[in-house]
């Protein structure tokens, strides 16, 4: 149990000498009961890692997340989860008509720790407000969730994961629909979370962003590649997105490869 007197910041994962290994996956197949939709995943995750999960829609990112969250049983292989996972869903899919404040949403992260007959306590509320402060939304704690901007809503959902106090945080395309300023704020927040020892798995479509984070996991029905950014070769990107890469010359960014998907899948 946490000391209820210490509420200055939401508690992070315990300090250990050297980054602790939080997750180990070997030859994992995931699916919904029938044929696996994602095969051959192998990776490990240490405290402080930021891993970009690249892949087309339907490539298995969501399936992997749901398996890590325990909602799907692994079809085959080894899944050694040594810490709890929290998920930050896409805010584009959240309900904007619901009569809840940012604090109410952050407080939802406390429910999993409570027995079914217990209500969130005053210290849970303090924790939720501290988490909102950590994501830079202290001033919006009482704002209705639906009235916040997309970037602010995304950070409220990050605060909810912080209240869940999970060492591993899965983020499902958190940058989708954000303007440049909001994306920059979220980027800094994710860096801060990694620095305090959380491991982040971040689904994204932005290859440049993935390069900045250092580690990538490329999925397209199977694991295409896993490792440092040097694995992001043209062949890997083509296999990941199932398309062709064209070189774009851009006045601002210089020489720039871009993926042309052969066709668009919606699953």
């Amino acid at each position: 149990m946490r000391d209820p007197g210490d509420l200055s910041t939401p508690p992070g994962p315990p300090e250990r000498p050297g980054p602790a290994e939080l997750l180990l996956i070997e030859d994992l197949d995931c699916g919904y009961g029938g044929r696996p939709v994602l095969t051959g995943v192998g990776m490990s995750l240490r405290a402080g890692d930021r891993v970009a999960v690249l892949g087309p829609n339907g490539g298995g990112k969501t399936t992997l997340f749901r398996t890590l969250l325990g909602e799907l049983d692994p079809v085959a292989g080894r899944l050694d989860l040594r810490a709890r996972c929290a998920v930050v869903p896409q805010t584009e899919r959240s309900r904007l008509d619901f009569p809840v404040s940012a604090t109410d949403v952050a407080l939802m992260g406390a429910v999993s720790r409570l027995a079914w007959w217990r209500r969130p306590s005053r210290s849970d509320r303090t924790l939720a407000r501290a988490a909102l402060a950590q994501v830079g939304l202290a001033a919006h704690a009482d704002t209705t969730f639906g009235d916040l901007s997309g970037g602010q809503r995304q950070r409220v959902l990050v605060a909810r994961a912080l209240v869940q106090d999970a060492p591993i945080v899965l983020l499902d395309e958190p940058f989708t629909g954000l303007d440049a300023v909001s994306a920059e704020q979220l980027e800094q927040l994710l860096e801060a979370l990694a620095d305090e020892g959380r491991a982040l798995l971040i689904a994204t479509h932005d290859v440049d962003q993935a390069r900045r984070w250092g580690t990538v996991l490329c999925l397209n029905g199977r694991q295409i590649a896993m490792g440092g950014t040097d694995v992001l070769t043209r062949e890997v990107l083509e296999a990941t997105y199932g398309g062709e890469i064209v070189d774009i010359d851009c006045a601002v960014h210089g020489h720039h490869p871009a993926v042309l998907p052969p066709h668009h899948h919606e699953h």
Partner: protein
Amino acid sequence: MTLAVLHWLTDPWSEALTRRALAEVVLLGIAGGALGCWLIFFNLAYSAESLAHALLPGLVVAALLGLPLLLGGAAGLAVAAVAVALAGRIPGLDRDTATAVVVTTLFGLGALLALEPDVPARLQALLFGDVLGVSDTDLALALGLVVVVAGALWVGHGRLLVVGFDRLNAPALGVGTLAVDVALLGLLAAALLVAVQGLGNLLVVAVLIAPAAAARLITRRMVPMIVASAAIATVAGVGGMYVSFHARTAAGASIAGALVVVYLLVAGVTGAAEPARRRRADRPRPVPYARPG
């Protein structure tokens, strides 16, 4: 003049019959108003109406056999639930259609039974309620309903919020959606069974949906919405009783009418104030409850 108003206000409560009816309306208003807030956020308005109508054959059979209506209603609900579940499995029939088919069938069956020449003339009471005929047992049941609904909503508040707000990720937040759904449907069934005698098969849904829909327009948080909804239901219910007493209209219909009038008033007032808050125009507006029975 003042005296006349005073008399207008106090006359209805001079008889024990109307005092009991008043107590019943207040209790059902509190329970129905509070529960209704969750029903509309769980998209259960149609289910509430369907269940209310589908339990008619149970009520009629109970009236025929001289059994307690509560028992008949409960049996009717069980039959309806099984029938809806089975009809939903018919290939090519979506769930709404299956529910509509089952409910119409059961409701028609109930009406057919009730219109048999041998049946005591109680169909009207079953359809439109008989709030002036509530017994002490009915009042005790209504009080029990208030206690159960208030207790369950108090304890389950956090989990209801999680599932209502983010059903897809509720399991990852440690909340089982099935348990929450079953609990809410159980409360709905209990509320229907207790309220159907006073308000009637056709009108009981008004107390569950109209106050919550009105409260949603004037509140920004769940707890104030629940309080406002219960208050609106109570005030409109008592107002309906006044109308019924002075204009000699049917009590159940007057109450349902008052509930809808309050909703329309609130919608009108908030709608008129809307241009000032245009920037929130992307917020979806609730649709007035208007599904033909």
